[in-house]
């Protein structure tokens, strides 16, 4: 099993009201020194079978037509190396 990550961000010229709201909240909460915040979304796709060119092309198409709204968003597709060993248990 391999994981492919699709990161979707609003294009740089597009207004990001959510990011702005976060940025405005930061100093109120005592976090100084952040001049801008942009918020995006991340999709983690568990792929059945090998992540070959065909699979990536498919994911690319998926991202272009469904995961991202390419009129206002950009996306990046990244393959994460699969971990053959036991899945790491997150520290709680």
């Amino acid at each position, binding site marked *: 099993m391999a994981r492919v990550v699709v990161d979707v961000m609003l*294009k740089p*010229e*597009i*207004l990001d009201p959510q990011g702005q709201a976060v940025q405005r909240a930061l100093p109120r909460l005592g976090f100084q020194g952040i001049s801008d915040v942009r918020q995006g979304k991340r999709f983690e796709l568990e792929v059945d079978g090998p992540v070959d060119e065909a699979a990536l092309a498919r994911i690319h198409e998926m991202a272009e037509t469904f995961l991202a709204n390419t*009129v*206002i968003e950009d996306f990046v597709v990244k393959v994460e190396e699969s971990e053959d060993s036991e899945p790491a248990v997150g520290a709680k």
Partner: protein
Amino acid sequence: MTLDTVKHAEQTAEAEQPWKELGLKEDEYARIREILGRRPTGAELAMYSVMWSEHCSYKSSKVHLKQFGEKVPDNDAMLVGIGENAGVVDVGQGYAVTFKVESHNHPSYIEPYQGAATGVGGIVRDILAMGARPVAVVDPLRFGAADHPDTKRVLPGVVAGIGGYGNCLGLPNIGGEVVFDPCYQGNPLVNAGCIGVMKHEDIHLAKASGTGNKVILYGARTGGDGIGGVSVLASETFESTGPAKRPAVQVGDPFQEKLLIECTLEIFGEKLVAGIQDLGGAGLSCATSELASAGSGGMRVDLDTVPLRDSSLSPEEILMSESQERMCAVVEPDKVDRFMEICEKWDVIATVIGEVTEGERLEIFWHGEQIVDVPPRTVAHEGPVYHRPFARPSWQDALQADDANKLARPANSAELKEQILKLVASPNQASKAWITDQYDRFVQGNTILAQPEDAGMVRVDEESNLGVAMATDGNGRYAKLDPYAGAQLALAESYRNVAASGAKPLAISNCLNFGSPEDPDVMWQFAEATRGLADGCLQLGTPVTGGNVSLYNQTGETAIHPTPVVAVLGVIDDVTRRTPIAFKEEGQLLYLLGETHEEFGGSAWSQVVHDHLGGLPPKVDLERERLLAEILISASRDGMIDAAHDLSDGGLIQAVVESCLRGGVGARLVVPDTLSTGGSATGDAFTFLLSESAGRAVVSVPRSEELRFTDMCGARGLPVTRIGVVDGDAVEVQGQFQLSLEELRTAHTGTIPELFA
């Protein structure tokens, strides 16, 4: 890159400039050079190109729109007319109402959610800029075929965008329409209307007067949104196969807009502004040139003081940016501090970007160097004017000769019943509750009527119960058959809808959606429709207060149906007297007002049953519309009727079904022996139920009021026919068929959710 200053432009007179890419024609570019006596700088070219685009300059439509200012009926209500951000009418008790409809068609096709959302935001700022508090919005929408896959992309996005933005602002959405037709497939129409209320003394105008007054830009920061959006988006036809030239779509922030509204109203309350303008299409180019040309002096702007979201923007881009939620005010120097305090309180960024100057130039500087030096009127108002050729289309005669009255009619009662069931379930006639339920219709607690009522109505004064009503209508099928009559029918229907709710129609606004003005066929449709509307308004005594034109709604050679959308605003002294559409009390009598003729051209029946468009639209009789309206208003005021529903597409049966379903009670109808047809009676059930003759309404009359009501109609010469009674739990047409309310409800309410939910 070197800055293209005025000095630089003088020195490099022959430099190549991208006027063509910016949508200017060769002679337009030549004229700019002539006005300036040199080549324009990059910033000047940006301003002229965007302000001289079809969308901003109305260069193709202007010569026809003049009629709205020439054929003006006597009407005391008009306080501010065409030319300002929006018209203003007097509604009595010291109140004034401003209202307007605008198109956001092309952006909503590219990005349905944000396109529709920013459409709402834009019209709300227009209303705000007049000094009014926005109190309600309406949205007339047109989409392609209901079952087309792309409609499933566009419609839910548009509806969510309107709901998302409007609901966040806390504005009730009280009306509008949703119409499907394949002609809108690549060109959906997203029109947005808004109503605002103020006291007479609070009216504000867009002008910059008083040398030394400060120009303040406030609201959101300026980013790269919609750069060139106005000229590229609104003025060029989409190439169906062309490469994706994706423009930067504007994204709105309704919470920022809400702050802007409250902040601006507080500023108005303290009388701090001398002039004000919202920033919409063409952004700062439009706001500075319009403010400066409306005032007495000139204006100087330091563009580098504009707060930016993206510091890499060039001066040209800043001038063209269509970032949302911005306003521009002109403020006397000693009031600037207080202005800034209020903005700070509302967390709204405000910056002095310039001042009103002596002289008559608009001068813009970038870090001290002059990049714009123009006479502002040449940018804002003295753009090109085209007398585009127009001619009656060669196919118009054949279209009108293809008579819908000759289409095969139902052979028997069973077939009639089947066709009616199909009609009330067809996407255009079906309940739009799935759509309007996504809008907040009752927020603020002043909504008296909202969809699916004939008109939306809001209370203006909580003490006196003064209210205003608004309806929007525009039947593109009628207008295709005859644009002159079609525009008048849109006016008549909207007028009738307002009157049916009990309000007195006062004035209109319009949104004229057409194909390419470079096509003489389309230009003829436009010329005919504007002539029809202007003549109609003169006759009905309802002046045009303003409006909007959207051209180039076409894909390739195929234009949309001419779609003049008319919004009529009415006033009602006491909203508790309003007339709803719902039949409620069993035993009440149903009367049909007006005359029924065999009129099926452009009808819903011809579309649903025969997929046909041909013949002539229903005959227009505006004197009859006026009489009908007077009767409906009097009857409402004097409590003679408990329900009224105007008859339009789908005819009598559609209206009766809607009124029955709304009230949860049935009706028994009798086909009159002789319809009031002024002589050409057919008396048959088909015409009675499905004809779309104009100037008609159905009313529900309590038995105790019957005599008084029919006497009034008789005395004033309005044909009136008793057609049945409110009764039972089915719609029954005696001797023909019976449809249970349950069966009708399933058919009527199931269609839209099935397609889009």
